[in-house]
């Protein structure tokens, strides 16, 4: 019993230690060959990184694979990391780039598959989507986001879906904050245009946000 209590206490201390050690210290420890220190960094940021990557790549398993790839790249490039800067934006930059690279490759593969198909195999008209299939809001938004150019989409996703501040996004993307704000304004305007068009095309059958429907109910 006493031994159990001691081991629990020790694990609590370890958790406290892990939380209290700064990123900069952990990076330094990794550079000195302490791989477990890198494990602490992974555990510290993995959930957030998976979450960010899933905003670009919806499949959870793919997002986990890309997160792993991001961490491995970060480890391999740790010699290039400037310790006077914060670790998290640098890590997220690598993670987002890994996700975008993956999307580019998939897109290229998609085009190749399209053109390599025999003409007879392709339907003359694109297949009509079954309107009865329920589509959730997230999926619809994801599809609209895919139409926004990458540089703008990245800023929109990080700000409006992941709630990073514009200064954090500037650090992640290595751009000036003014540039980020300008891209953000453009991206939001483009999203608004595309979303409105999509709604009009589908006769307002798109799922509406709860806030909007509740607001409408209040008015009546």
């Amino acid at each position, binding site marked *: 019993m006493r031994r159990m209590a001691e081991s629990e206490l020790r694990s609590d201390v370890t958790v406290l230690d892990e939380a209290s050690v700064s990123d900069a210290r952990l990076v330094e420890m*990794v*550079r000195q*060959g302490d*791989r477990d220190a*890198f*494990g602490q960094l*992974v*555990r510290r940021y*993995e*959930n957030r990184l*998976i*979450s960010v990557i*899933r*905003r670009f790549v*919806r499949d*959870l398993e793919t*997002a*986990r694979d890309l*997160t*792993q790839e991001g*961490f*491995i790249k970060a*480890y*391999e490039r*740790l*010699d*290039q990391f400037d310790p006077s800067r914060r670790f998290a934006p640098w890590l997220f930059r690598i993670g987002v780039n890994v996700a975008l690279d993956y999307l580019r490759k998939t897109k290229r593969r998609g085009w190749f598959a399209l053109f390599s198909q025999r003409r007879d195999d392709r339907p003359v008209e694109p297949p009509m989507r079954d309107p009865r299939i329920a589509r959730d*809001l*997230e999926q619809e*938004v994801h599809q609209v986001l895919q139409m926004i150019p990458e540089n703008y989409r990245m800023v*929109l996703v990080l*700000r*409006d*879906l*992941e*709630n990073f501040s*514009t200064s954090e996004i500037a650090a992640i993307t290595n751009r000036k904050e003014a540039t980020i*704000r300008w891209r*953000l*304004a453009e991206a*939001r*305007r483009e*999203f*608004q245009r595309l*979303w*409105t068009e999509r709604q009009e095309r589908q006769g307002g059958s798109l799922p*509406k*946000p*709860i*806030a*909007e429907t509740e607001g409408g109910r209040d008015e009546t």
Partner: protein
Amino acid sequence: MIWNNCHQVRQRLPLLAESDLPVAERTVVERHLLQCPECRRQLSLTGESQAVLHEVRAVRPVEGNASVWPAVERQLAGVPFRQRAERPGWIPVGALTTACAALLFIGVFGPGFDSLPSSIETVEVIDGSGPSAKGVSGRGYEYKPSQSPYFNDTNSY
């Protein structure tokens, strides 16, 4: 800062809708909105599309419970941490000096250097008064002096 132009104001509405506009600009935009119903309508439309994004933001993607560290650790096994390669400082300086010297050489003794008697002699040889050009220049093609703008004027350099 005075903007009476709706276009300038509307460019900033997506930022105003989410409090991302710097304070100084926000005051100007808000002042304009007080007197412009069409810009107010635009702001309301922006608010609607932003509400859609808020809704999606609230739906956090489900993360897997298991940590990715064991998988990462397996892949890192046998990969020693790469220390920054120590590059001797003289390498870039040496490379730069060599490149400058090469450029200088090409500039001075390159194809435009018409005071080189050997070049002139080579041209004369091609015209048929001596051994073949191939034998002299070793390049295997015939050079016609009139084809080069560099040789038209002897003071071109």
